[in-house]
């Protein structure tokens, strides 16, 4: 059935693409108006909801509401976190929103220490913003809501923990609003990206702007694989490391991966950058393969990595990222005449 679904989805994607040829400028405009702006706005909305839910938790003890709002806001971020240009990369927002991977568990230690000391300066947004990036965002909030001692949140004993969590949520809300505003600004990055000009520092030509869009997706896929899947699945020695998975405490590892792929796929589709029908079909099939793999992983990661079917699905997810990188980083770049290429790929 999944194969039929994939073919059907491929046909849906191909039809509009083959029906019209759209210009690079339109692709850029479409990227911004159909994906980036609405999705950054959705992230702002979800974090505002999260902030409200944290207040409700602290006032009325609605823990489930706050935990659900956390999952929604994290997924909204998962759909845009690969947009590593413009406002997300200013003021360390990317790391402040989600400091991950945290290989040495620095963030966790800092959060635990802050909770143990009931450091009141962390319970206000200005105070929090002076602290380490690792205690400011989703990683810290996940520990507050799901980590050891989360039960105290609904008791007087957990008052500080809740206030700290509310400050994190407010901090996230502020940053998300800044990101949405940055992209909404008619004179900001959206203009530079969609109407490139030789006088701009970031986008001088249409080709460079398109390279940026395709590069974001290509690097986004690489990032998902290298930082979100490979670190916790079984290595060559057969050992998995489920505690290296993002959001294992809240069981949001797979929903977050789903959101990541969803965002990447939507930008590819909504920007209409893939005009070649055969390539579009392959890209759609590769995303469908990723979706199918994710759908098979139904247990918490700790169990999933030890279950043969689910472990195989996770390996298949990695394989789909390799397909996607080749299709988007190489084949799509070639058809668009881009050089998301050899010497300029990344820092060396």
């Amino acid at each position, binding site marked *: 059935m999944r194969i039929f679904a994939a073919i059907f989805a491929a046909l849906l994607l191909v039809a509009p693409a083959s029906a019209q040829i759209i210009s690079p400028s339109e692709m850029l405009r479409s990227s911004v108006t159909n994906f980036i702006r609405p999705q950054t706005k959705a992230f702002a909305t979800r974090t505002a909801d999260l902030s409200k839910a944290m207040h409700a938790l602290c006032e009325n003890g609605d823990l489930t509401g706050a935990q659900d709002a956390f999952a929604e806001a994290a997924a909204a971020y998962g759909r845009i976190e690969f947009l590593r240009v413009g406002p997300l*990369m200013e003021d*360390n927002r990317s790391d402040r929103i989600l400091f991950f991977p945290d290989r040495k568990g620095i963030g966790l230690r800092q959060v635990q220490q802050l909770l143990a000391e009931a450091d009141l300066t962390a319970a206000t947004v200005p105070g929090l913003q002076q602290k380490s990036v690792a205690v400011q965002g989703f990683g810290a909030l996940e520990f507050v809501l799901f980590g050891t001692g989360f039960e105290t949140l609904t008791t007087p004993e957990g008052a500080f923990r809740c206030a700290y969590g509310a400050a994190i949520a407010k901090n996230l809300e502020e940053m998300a609003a800044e990101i949405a505003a940055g992209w909404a600004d008619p004179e900001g990055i959206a203009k530079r990206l969609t109407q490139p000009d030789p*006088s701009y520092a970031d986008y001088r030509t249409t080709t460079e702007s398109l390279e940026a869009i395709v590069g974001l997706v290509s690097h986004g896929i690489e990032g998902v694989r290298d930082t979100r899947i490979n670190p916790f699945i079984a290595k060559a020695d057969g050992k998995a490391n489920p505690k290296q998975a993002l959001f294992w405490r809240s069981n949001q590892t797979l929903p977050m991966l789903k959101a990541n792929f969803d965002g990447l796929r939507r930008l590819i589709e909504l920007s209409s950058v893939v005009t070649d029908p055969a390539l579009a079909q392959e890209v759609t099939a590769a995303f469908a393969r990723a979706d199918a793999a994710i759908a098979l992983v139904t247990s918490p990661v700790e169990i999933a990595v030890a279950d043969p079917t689910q472990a195989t699905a996770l390996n298949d997810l990695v394989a789909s990222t390799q397909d996607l990188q080749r299709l988007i980083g190489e084949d799509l770049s070639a058809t668009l005449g881009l050089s998301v290429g050899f*010497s300029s790929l990344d*820092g060396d």
Partner: protein
Amino acid sequence: MWQRRAFLKSAGAGFLASLAPRQLLALEANDLVFASSIQTFAGKYGAVLMGERGGVISMIDLPDRGHDITISREAQRGVVFARQPGTFALVFDPFGNEAPQTLTSIEGRHFFGHGVFSPDGRLLYATESDFEAAQGVIGIYDATDDYRRIGEFPTYGTGPHEMLLMPDGTTFVVANGGIETHPDYGRAELNLDTMDPSVVFIDRRDGTLIGQLRLDTGLHQLSIRHMAVDAQNRVWFGCQYKGAPSDSPQLIGYATMDGEIRLIELPLDTLRDLRNYVGSVAASADGNTIAVSSPEGDLLIAIDAENKRPVLVETLRNGCGLAADQSGFVATSGKGEMIGIAGAERSQQQFDFLFDNHMLRLG
């Protein structure tokens, strides 16, 4: 600051020693030879040696993508280092008489793509990562004993990239790019908020830190990566900026063994065209001109080392590799082009492979 003071204190005698530019070696008399890592159109990786006029002398297969190459006439060997976070270095005989030998990084280390030989060719040094500790090291290999790894020195920073031997023959200069990576996470950059790049001078004989120079703290996301030494022993460096792409910090500077470090002021339009990325830095044969490249901005700039101003700005699509020839520089690109700039007398050539980031002139 204590490091800088320590530097000044010890900078007296030893460092002013040799002003003579290091003689580059010649593979064959009266002919320049260039070496570069490459990728074939079919996607395979290798390294090539090319003659003065661009004829390919030999090509070596690599198991994965290579980066920089170093060579020693004394050792009669060249070494191609894997691109980070690669785990191989290939020792080859430029004359092609001996089969290449593959070195593998030891457990807990990977290569960063750069290295040098000792002046007598007996030791090979490579920048490596101690990735569990997130600290850079210089791996030391005994060229007289099958390239056995005999030890390591710290680089006193994270993410070391290019290392050079100063003309005195006893001082290393290393660019600590400041970026933490770990093989568990591919090439993901793990510490952009706390980056601490530096240029360090290290005593080759015992690994002692002679001096460590940092740019202003506001520039902590300016990763110092590639270097070249000019006629006055100034170490010119090129940076890659990891902050917001719409920022345009200055990217080219120099450090001296007297403890000075500064960025030069490129005109803003030229600076913008580097797109926050310098991929390679080279000094001219007389050491009076410095060339830098940006494959991101398709730009090559030649700078007068004395007055610190650009003397030439040229475009080369995906251009990165740079090496001095007798009168100017040879530049290569990820599109397979080779051109001459800043006085080099050579016509544009197109090859049927893609040049990697660095070009080495053997002699």
